[in-house]
């Protein structure tokens, strides 16, 4: 049994793009944001300027429920750089609104992970003061 935690060390702060500034502003407030098409309601992530469902340029920011399920996951034992503590568990979360978020699952044992398991988003602040959306089993 090996416990999964949010990364305790320094992590290079994300550099927002023109499209993603509102996303990171939301994270700083503890709010998970995504874009939804005002024309066809298709949910969009990562942030952009046009709807991936219908092509309309009418995306509106919305707050996610923060509830979802594990779509896929891995457990990393060889870190990308020495700054990352292993193990950590990158995962794709399918949010209740039907969009996909890449994050890491925390606060559980590696053996507890399974595709389809219910999760909720939980924000953790890095050493550098960046608020990141992680996922926890519920």
């Amino acid at each position, binding site marked *: 049994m090996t416990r999964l935690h949010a*990364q305790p060390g320094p*992590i*290079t702060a*994300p*550099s*927002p*793009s023109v499209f*993603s500034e509102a996303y*990171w502003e939301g994270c700083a407030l503890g709010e998970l944001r995504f874009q939804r098409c005002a024309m066809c309601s298709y949910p969009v992530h*990562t942030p952009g300027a046009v709807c991936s469902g219908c092509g309309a340029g009418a995306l509106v920011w919305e707050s996610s429920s923060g509830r979802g399920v594990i*779509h*896929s*996951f*891995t*457990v*990393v*034992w*060889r*870190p*990308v*750089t*020495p700054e*990352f503590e292993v193990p*950590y568990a*990158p*995962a*794709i979360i399918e949010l209740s609104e039907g969009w*996909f*978020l*890449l*994050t*890491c699952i925390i606060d559980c044992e590696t053996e507890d992970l399974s*595709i*389809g398991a219910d999760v909720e988003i939980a924000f953790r602040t*890095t050493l550098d003061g*960046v608020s*990141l959306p992680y996922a926890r089993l519920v």
Partner: protein
Amino acid sequence: MNHNPLHDVVITGVHNTRQAKVLEGHDSRSISLEAAHGALADAGLAPIDIDGVVGPFGNDFIHQHRIGPVWRSLSPLGIPAVLEAAMAIACGLATTVLIATGEAGSHRQRSSTAPWTRPTNEFVAPFGMFTAAEFALMARRHMHLYGTTPESMAHVAAVIRNNGHAHPDAVFRGRGPFTAADVLESRMVADPFHLLDCAMTSEGGTAMVLTSADRANGSARPIHILGGGTDHFGPAYQNPPVWESGGRRRPDLIAGTVGRRASELAFAAAGIGPGEVDVCEFYDPFSFEIIRQFEAFGFCGEGEGGDFVLSGAIEPGGPFPITTDGGTMSFSHGGAAVQLLQRVNRGVQQLRGTCSSMQVDGAEIAMCTGGGSGAMFTDVILLGTEAP
């Protein structure tokens, strides 16, 4: 069948430099130039015969040999470079094109994963993502959907690593033989991938020369381009690698089957089907990707790839031998792109019948690939000993 201009183009020269974990005395520029000279010698040509170049060091080649003005492509390497060179020749922009690349000295500090595997994107870098983790998310989804096992992946890795074990020029020559159990017992990198399920990293150069079939008359053994295609689903390592994503163009064309459309185009241009392929020089960044490609390209049904690779099909002597030089797991993985072109080079060697190990007897058609599901792209090229 309509005439396909790709059929007017042939490959007349290929060369790999020495491949090694570290190539002392070389940098990327010097090893690329050595590769270029090797491919020219193999084609029986001089630098002045080249009027088109592809590759990051193509400009250097133009300048050093004072062959300008010539056509130059900024194409990425691997199969897209081969196809673009072929199109340039078919369209009359160039008559004889050199593709050359190499890397040395860019990854010698090993505490981190290789620099080309580390994304900097805002949505993935904070979560410690790198290439192995991206591909592991795809493999895990396939396991969930179809019951694919780590044992089937380990078998693929053992077959490829044994091909490299027997290859005199492989970086990992003589390291085997390997069994699936050896792979499963190696340390975990990104579940379900053990160390031996993954590509290694090394240094090396590689190059190729293409020209028109007319000009190649008299060449020792010109190898024909039968067809090709490239499939992309957008930027790699930025958006979550969701197996089912895509599908707006056609429901079965999803990120998990990336390469299917490219293979359909290639097979149609060649006028053949998967059953007529003699050697499968598939790109092998991770063991699972071989299983996935057999499904995506129609060698077997969706979800059947695990059983397919365990059926005896992929070993030397089987109907679809894979990655016969040891690929990125054992032969070489020289950087961001060197190894992508080496799949095509190996296909050429197989069809010439000149492989020093794992030569497929009487091979007439080779399928070479690049990319992978975790990277959201897959490229395909079909080569033949005869024009269609």
